[in-house]
């Protein structure tokens, strides 16, 4: 019996994986072939999705992007034994896309059956938790601190310090909360982990719970990711059935369980205090800090709030040691970063690399330039609150501090490529509009500033008093940057100011041309 893999990743499904799967099953039945189908996650070569993989004695051979209409010809070409076909990409693990990657967080994603506990364990799963149990909570936190891991949600706060702060708080009730409210455009790494290797998140949360003394974990997942919810729930059930969650985790005596909670379409709930409010059943309004969530978090109890990627990296750090992870990277950005390359790009995908890659290498060498074939105009790095970086800054290395130096941020590692047809004054306007739509309303700079920002950019685009209005817009951005309570209002000026600075010509078009749009 041949084992073949057809992804259940949302991007693969959006490109027809369900019809493809049905066609394969029908064709196999019609031809009397017995096959075993595994629904894996994505390997990250998203331009090849849906990517079918066939297990052969020589390794897994890939065919993609495959449509239902390709299935008959795939069978004709004996793809079940790795036969030649125009869609064949050869042995998947030897694909050039992986050559410069260092897969740590995503080492299993796409390779295994995401809802099989046995698969996870067979691929090195639970080595990290076993080691944590062996060395104890304090040494576990030290490994995380030694790894140099910083919060992958965007803020880049050292994870080890966060865990230690919660561990040092008095019990008995503490929580582990995972932020899976991945709302940034151009990012999908959290989704891919939850769809492709959910056990790494479950194990990471369990390690954290053991280290800080928590007995309950919540994953707050955005409602736009229904397939991730389905797969993660199945993985939770499998973990409970295997004794990896519950009253006595893997026979250690640790009591810990996880509950999946679904958000309700509010971008601001990706901000940690707003997320906690939402989990408590309130409006997702940002809390003033202090108190930090580590001291008074969910229901007022000490709470670790980490991004999916930070948490899913903990198992490897514990299994291989903090030093092994810290060996990758540059400066104070240690380890690897799963880059998500998207937008107008030829080879969109998820590529996990050590920190330090130059933006130009990412966009041109890995991404292959624009999909439209036109010149790149700008790359928005770090989601809707990230700056538009022009080609002149393409030698900026991917590193928290290097991006801060050029008035930008790396956020959650998403990059959206735009070609030269893009009107940057429109993108700036959209940035402000998005902030106005999603503002929680608690602080004035964000609530009112974003609406005034839209109006002011509209005036500029209409050619009204352009110089005075640009000065006003810059001033407004400064107020929002320094006066807002959280990153939504505080960082919304980044796309606007970067567009203004790097593409001033787009704000000074003749009034007539702007009016015609």
């Amino acid at each position, binding site marked *: 019996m041949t084992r073949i893999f057809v992804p259940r990743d949302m991007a693969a499904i959006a490109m027809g994986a369900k019809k493809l799967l049905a066609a394969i099953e029908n064709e196999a039945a019609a031809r009397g072939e017995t096959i075993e189908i595994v629904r894996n996650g994505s390997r990250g070569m998203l331009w090849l999705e849906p990517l079918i993989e066939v297990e052969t004695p020589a390794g897994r051979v890939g065919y993609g992007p495959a449509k239902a209409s390709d299935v008959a010809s795939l069978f004709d070409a004996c793809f079940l034994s790795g036969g030649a076909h125009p869609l064949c990409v050869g042995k998947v693990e030897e694909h050039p896309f992986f050559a410069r990657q260092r897969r740590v967080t995503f080492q299993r994603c796409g390779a295994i059956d995401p809802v099989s506990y046995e698969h996870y364990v067979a691929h090195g799963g639970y080595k990290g938790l076993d080691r944590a149990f062996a060395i104890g909570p304090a040494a576990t936190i030290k490994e995380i601190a030694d790894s140099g891991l910083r919060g992958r949600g965007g803020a880049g706060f050292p994870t080890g310090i966060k865990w230690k702060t919660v561990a040092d708080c008095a019990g008995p009730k503490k929580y582990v909360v995972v932020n899976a409210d991945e709302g940034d455009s151009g990012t999908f790494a959290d989704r891919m982990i939850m769809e492709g290797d959910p056990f790494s998140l479950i194990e990471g949360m369990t390690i954290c719970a053991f280290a800080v003394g928590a007995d309950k974990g919540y994953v707050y997942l955005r409602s*736009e990711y229904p397939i991730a919810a389905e797969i993660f729930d199945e993985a939770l059930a499998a973990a409970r059935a295997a004794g990896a969650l519950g009253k006595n985790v893997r026979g250690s005596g640790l009591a810990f369980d996880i509950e999946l909670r679904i958000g309700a379409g509010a971008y601001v709930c990706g901000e940690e205090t707003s997320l906690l409010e939402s989990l408590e059943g309130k409006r997702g309004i940002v809390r003033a800090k202090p108190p930090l969530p580590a001291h008074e978090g969910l229901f007022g109890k000490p709470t670790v709030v980490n991004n999916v990627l930070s948490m899913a990296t903990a198992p490897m750090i514990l299994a291989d040691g903090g030093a092994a992870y810290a060996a990758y990277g540059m400066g104070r950005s240690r380890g690897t970063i799963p880059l998500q390359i998207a*937008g107008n790009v030829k080879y969109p995908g998820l590529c996990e690399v050590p920190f330090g890659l130059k933006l130009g290498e990412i966009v041109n060498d890995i991404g292959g330039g624009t999909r439209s074939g036109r010149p790149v105009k700008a790359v928005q790095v770090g989601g809707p609150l990230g700056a538009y970086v022009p080609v002149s800054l393409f030698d900026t290395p991917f590193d928290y501090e290097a991006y801060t130096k050029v008035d930008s941020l790396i956020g959650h590692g998403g990059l959206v490529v735009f070609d030269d047809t893009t009107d940057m004054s429109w993108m700036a306007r959209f940035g402000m509009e*998005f902030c106005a739509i999603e503002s929680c309303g608690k602080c004035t700079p964000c609530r009112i500033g974003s609406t005034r920002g839209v109006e002011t950019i509209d005036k500029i685009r209409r050619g009204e008093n352009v110089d005075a209005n640009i000065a006003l817009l810059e001033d407004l951005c400064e107020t929002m940057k320094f006066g807002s309570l959280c990153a939504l209002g505080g960082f919304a000026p980044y796309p606007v100011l970067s567009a203004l600075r790097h593409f001033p010509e787009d704000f000074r078009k003749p009034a007539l041309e702007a009016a015609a749009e």
Partner: protein
Amino acid sequence: MSGAVPWNEARAREIIDAHLSLEGPALPILHALHDEFGCVPEAATPILADALNVSRAEMHGVITFYHDFNREPHGRHTLKICRAESCQSMGAETMARDFLARLKLDWGQTTPDGALTVEPVYCLGLCSHSPSAMYDGEPIGRVDSATLDELAQEAKCA
């Protein structure tokens, strides 16, 4: 959307009661009510407020804070079109604007025959296959004007 049943207070109370043992049960309850009735109507507010021991004003505040909870039933089908930056880089804004103009709708509105509601969404995490959309919960990548028109036609007939 199409599976929603008309508002029924007794059923609503059952749904609420089934979730009350959770910590912070408001969002799970609101999702469950929304799944059942296709919306969280005004009539639900006092019942929820009572069950969760908060004021009606607070409950109203929670329900209306979140984009996902409609106060009235929407069309039989829902099409969410992504407006976020990645999809805009592939022309989603013009595509969506033209589509809405052909249907004579604005964002969030429903066709007069009640077949289709068109909503904006800010990222579906399908940025590798922009522009993207979601039709009755099914994700669709590399959407173009022809796909949107086909979906509008499908909604009308189904």
